[in-house]
């Protein structure tokens, strides 16, 4: 699964639904919030901006009004006869007093007076700045006035650290004889007055270049702010070209201010510049925005909660019956078919539940059939029948056929009631069947005390013949262990069989037929003749080489023209006792002599074996044949085979 796939795969339907809802809802709500918030904030900033612009205009207007008053007073002074007389008296001390007198009468409209002669020499200066000749901004003021038709000029000039709005006018006597400069200070009273009108904070800030340095020394000259906010203002305000024109946000201790600057004095190159700063509380103005934003967030939360609840309800209405269904299906998977789901809905879930219920019923039915089938036929054949379309006909397969019979059973049954006989037979057959199945064999049929078992059909393995050999050894050992006088005689053949369903279309039977099957039955019956517990065909022996065998004979069984070599399975290779090994070797020698028709030698060896070993009957078979061949010699091309005339 890809990374994305694993990231977005959720085990529960509910979480998938929730994620889907969130993925749908959150971007939409977020987008709306962003749009509304941006617009609102913009609008608020515009409002603040216009408030501040208005405030700055009122500041200028107030200043201009006061400047007008100043002009009126200063102008009327120029034509005051008493003042003219004082000026004409040419006594600076008198003139100074006259100037102070005018200032006293001006109701604080005039805070300073400066009188200069036409050459720019200072006659009196109520601020006593110590100037003899005009300098700096004063010179600029007078030059402006001189260039003016009316001889009038206005400016803001910093005097002794305070900004003064000043106006220069000619003093007529009746011709111009001097310049008279009046000024009023932009002080606390002034900013308080402006604040009353514009309801915004007003400060006047001076920026002064520190000598020999790029740094600016900022000083708040007067302000309506608290002293803490004033120091925040002095620390944060920027006077650079771009920032001068734009609104600036000042974060003070009490609140945030949006600030607008107006230059009052000095240009960018000058060491001293004075600015008016109009400030408005950002928080106060954005209160509506904040309120609206919190309302919006509350609304969003409500929408989210309601949607989540709806989704949970929806998910529940699906997942609860689904979980029930899953539980039932799991139980069915484990083989418990007696469960049914109770879902009372008419939707797809209800339909699904109905389907599951009927499926469970169907499975239970099938299981009963399979169970029964498994009892009637082998488990593997039952599977084969259940899983493949049942049809008549078969296929050619290589298989190993095991035929087992019980020797001594007739004797065993003598004198026992039939029920006991059947019980004993069932025990034996069950034992054989279990051994066969333990070695991946399939019991094909029972016939009295005989059992026919298949290896390699219907399911092909890699060690089918070896499994048959192991089963043979186990069956023999099991019957010996029963110690009931019963023993097994087994024939095993390997070869091509036809496997498939035999019978009619109504009643059929999975089985195998063919020469291999017949031969197996023949070999089983030959065990009595040779007095051995088993006989396996050459093909079987070749297919299971890890066992120890001894060749018994070459025989032509009834109904078969071709001679086959037959073997006795002795055990597992390498586990034979030394006496058995020598018997096998001696028997092999004797058989060789027999096949070379060295009757004397063969007779002697078989007789010798008969004396040494237990299975006297086997050697007697050959001794009898030797007697017969002496009387009635075999055909010239005889290779040692023995032909059995009848079944």
């Amino acid at each position, binding site marked *: 699964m890809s990374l994305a796939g694993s990231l977005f795969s959720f085990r529960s339907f509910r979480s998938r639904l929730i994620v889907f809802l969130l993925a749908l809802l959150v971007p939409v709500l977020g987008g709306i919030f962003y749009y509304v918030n941006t617009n609102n904030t913009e609008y608020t900033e515009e409002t603040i901006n216009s408030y501040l612009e208005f405030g700055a205009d009122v500041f200028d207007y107030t200043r201009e009004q006061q400047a007008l008053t100043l002009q009126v007073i200063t102008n009327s002074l120029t*034509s005051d006869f008493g003042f*003219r007389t004082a000026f*004409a008296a040419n006594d600076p001390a008198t003139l100074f007093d006259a100037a102070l007198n005018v200032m006293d009468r001006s109701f604080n409209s005039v805070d300073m007076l400066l009188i200069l002669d036409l050459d720019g020499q200072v006659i009196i200066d109520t601020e006593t700045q110590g100037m003899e000749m005009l300098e700096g901004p004063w010179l600029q003021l007078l030059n402006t006035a001189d260039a003016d038709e009316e001889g009038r000029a206005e400016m803001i000039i910093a005097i002794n650290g305070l900004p003064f709005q000043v106006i220069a006018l000619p003093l007529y*006597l009746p011709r111009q004889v001097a310049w008279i400069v009046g000024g009023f200070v932009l002080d606390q009273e002034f900013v308080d007055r402006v604040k009353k009108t514009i309801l915004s904070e007003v400060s006047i800030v001076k920026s002064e270049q520190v000598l020999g340095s790029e740094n600016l020394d900022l000083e708040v000259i007067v302000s309506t702010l608290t002293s803490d906010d004033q120091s925040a203002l002095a620390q944060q305000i920027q006077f650079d070209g771009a920032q001068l024109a734009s609104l600036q946000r000042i974060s003070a201790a009490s609140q945030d201010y949006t600030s607008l600057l107006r230059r009052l004095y000095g240009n960018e190159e000058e060491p001293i510049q004075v600015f008016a700063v109009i400030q408005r509380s950002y928080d106060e103005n954005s209160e509506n925005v904040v309120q609206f934003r919190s309302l919006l967030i509350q609304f969003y939360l409500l929408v989210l909660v309601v949607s989540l609840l709806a989704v949970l309800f929806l998910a529940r209405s699906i997942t609860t019956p689904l979980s029930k269904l899953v539980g039932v299906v799991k139980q069915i998977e484990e083989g418990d078919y007696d469960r049914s789901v109770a879902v009372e809905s008419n939707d797809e879930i209800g339909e699904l539940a109905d389907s599951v219920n009927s499926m469970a019923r169907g499975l239970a039915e099938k299981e009963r059939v399979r169970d029964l089938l498994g009892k009637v036929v082998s488990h593997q054949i039952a599977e084969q029948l259940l899983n493949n379309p049942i049809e008549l006909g078969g296929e050619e397969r290589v298989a190993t056929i095991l035929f087992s019979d019980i020797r001594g059973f007739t004797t065993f049954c003598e004198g026992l009631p039939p029920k006991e006989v059947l019980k004993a037979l069932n025990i034996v057959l069950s034992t054989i069947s279990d051994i066969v199945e333990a070695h991946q064999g399939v019991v094909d049929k029972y016939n009295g005390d005989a059992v026919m078992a298949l290896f390699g059909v219907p399911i092909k393995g890699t060690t089918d013949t070896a499994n048959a050999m192991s089963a043979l050894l186990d069956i023999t050992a099991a019957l010996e262990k029963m110690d009931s006088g019963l023993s097994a005689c087994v024939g095993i053949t390997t070869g091509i069989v036809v496997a498939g369903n035999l019978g009619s279309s109504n009643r059929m039977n999975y089985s195998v037929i063919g020469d291999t099957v017949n031969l197996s039955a023949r070999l089983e019956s030959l065990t009595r003749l040779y007095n051995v517990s088993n006989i396996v065909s050459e093909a079987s022996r070749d297919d299971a080489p890890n066992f120890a065998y001894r060749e018994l004979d070459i025989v032509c069984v009834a109904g078969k023209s071709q001679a086959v070599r037959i073997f006795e399975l002795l055990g597992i290779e390498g586990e034979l006792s030394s006496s058995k090994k020598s018997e096998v070797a001696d028997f092999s020698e004797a058989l060789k002599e027999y096949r070379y028709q060295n009757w004397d030698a063969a007779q002697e060896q078989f007789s010798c074996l008969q004396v040494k070993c237990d299975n006297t009957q086997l050697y007697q078979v050959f001794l009898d044949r030797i007697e017969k061949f002496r009387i009635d010699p075999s055909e010239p091309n005889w290779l040692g085979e023995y032909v059995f005339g009848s079944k």
Partner: protein
Amino acid sequence: MVSAQEIVLRLLDADGAPVPGAVMELLSGSSVASTSTGLREARIDQLDKEFVPTVTTIVVGGSASFPNSDDILHHVYSFSGAKTFDTPLYGSDANSQYREMFEVPGVVEIGCNIHDWMLAYIYVGESDLMAISDDVGVAGLTNIPPGQYRLRVWHSRLDAPQNSVEQDIVIEAGRTEEVELTVELARDRRVRRAPSANRKRYR
């Protein structure tokens, strides 16, 4: 003894325009007692809130009267070094007998403390050979005794010390001396009469 010696001064500004209202004075070593009453008793009227005339010449020791032809009061004053004075407020004909004496030569600027734009000049001369340039900038004197003089030209806006320039000149018998002078005029800084001053007056 009638002689025909004359001087005609043509005064032009830097732009070649005639300069009216300039005073030409001929100064000689010996002062000559003037016989002209006009130079001894000047009259500076106040008419329609203006001084008439705006330039007056008086010989040292002469006097001027300041009658009032308007129906409102005027307050004439001067803070000039040559003569500082001021009259009390006075109305029409109330001041006809009032005279100011001018004992020191120089220029006296007079104004009205009520009407700031009112401005007139009294040129107090050292000799009685004085004339004022007319509208075409020409000032002339006749019957001048021949001799060596110093010609002084004064104008309120003349851009020179004491607003005046001087030069030597010889007046010869029977001849008319013609002098053409170009002068630099400074900008005049004075109170202008507002156009509304006439309309808003009390009736």
